[in-house]
């Protein structure tokens, strides 16, 4: 089946099985390896990316549903050399340990901050439920608050 969608702002067209998961299309067909495979059951969140701005578990998302939509992966967050506030906060707080699950957490965080620019700990607990076997949750919480701060400062500067 011929499917077209925008991936990180660039139109992509491919001939794939419509039931193939978006994760495998992105990793194996489009060769972007930042989105990770974890459980394959939409449970751990390692494969989280954005479809039209919404966090989606791509391992359980048939590619046919992405047709005509905007897909954003971890590779599409930065603006060239300028890191996205979530990436910057992750670096500042030295969040990752092994790092495997981190792209999924960061994409989920982007979706959270889009809805809650100043999230409470409760907002974070309810929305960011991905799994990290290294147990970096406490550093991630700090990074999420830091990302909110960076975004807020950036917005204030833009309004000056």
């Amino acid at each position, binding site marked *: 089946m011929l499917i077209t969608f925008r991936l990180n702002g660039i139109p992509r067209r491919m001939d794939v099985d419509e*039931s193939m*998961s978006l994760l495998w299309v992105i990793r194996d067909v489009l060769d972007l390896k930042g989105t990770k495979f974890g459980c*394959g*059951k*939409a*449970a751990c969140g390692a494969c*989280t990316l954005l479809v039209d701005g*919404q*966090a*989606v*578990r791509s*391992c*359980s*998302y*048939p590619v046919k*549903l992405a047709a005509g939509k905007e897909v954003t992966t971890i590779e599409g967050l930065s603006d060239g050399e300028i890191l996205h506030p979530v990436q910057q906060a992750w670096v500042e707080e030295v969040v990752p340990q092994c790092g495997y699950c981190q792209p999924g957490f960061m994409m*989920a*965080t982007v*979706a*959270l901050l*889009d*809805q*809650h620019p100043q*999230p409470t700990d409760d*907002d974070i*607990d*309810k*929305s*960011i*439920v991905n799994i990290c076997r290294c147990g970096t949750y406490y550093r991630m919480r700090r990074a999420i608050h830091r990302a909110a701060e960076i975004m807020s400062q950036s917005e204030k500067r833009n309004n000056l």
Partner: protein
Amino acid sequence: MKELGGTKKRKVQLCLGLIIVFAGIAFLTNSASGHYQDQANTLDSSQLENGHGEVAFRKMMEVLTHNRCINCHPSGDRPLQGEDSHEHYFSVQRGPDNHGVAALRCESCHQEENNNYSGVPGAPHWGLAPKEMAWEGLSEQEIGAVILNPVTNGNRSLEELVRHMTEDSLVLWAWDPGVGVDGQPREKPPVMKEEFIAAVKEWAAAGAPIPD
């Protein structure tokens, strides 16, 4: 003779009165349920009078009290899942619009159809019924009252309620629930879909009774 004539007159009046009362009851019954009586083509008036609505109610409730329905009509702020109706794993929340929270929307995982590769169920507009439509922990009679009350049924008329219960793709998903993460088919309600649809229509045609 005069007294006898008076008795006859009273008997005639009584008969006329009874005829009017029965005609009135028949008219009201037809008005209220005529639409559904057309659809419930297996029913006749004697069946309605013989408690067919009650039988239909019981059959309907076998489905409404099954975990395929209850799991999405919880009384709390967490969806339920599984054959044992445990709280949804990963702290999944109801959220302000019954479709989850910011980065964990229902559609983050549940799409418009089942995904039998991952075992994640899906159907159009996947989400929880609003809290006022909660059935968890209610008796059959209480559920009956909830689904008939416009305040607790999404302001639906009886006709709209019947349409919801017999045509909504998320409701009918209960008979096409796919497989779980273990690859095993999910349990379906104990009544066949066609039987359930007929029962809902028959129940409505009988005036939507809530038997004790």
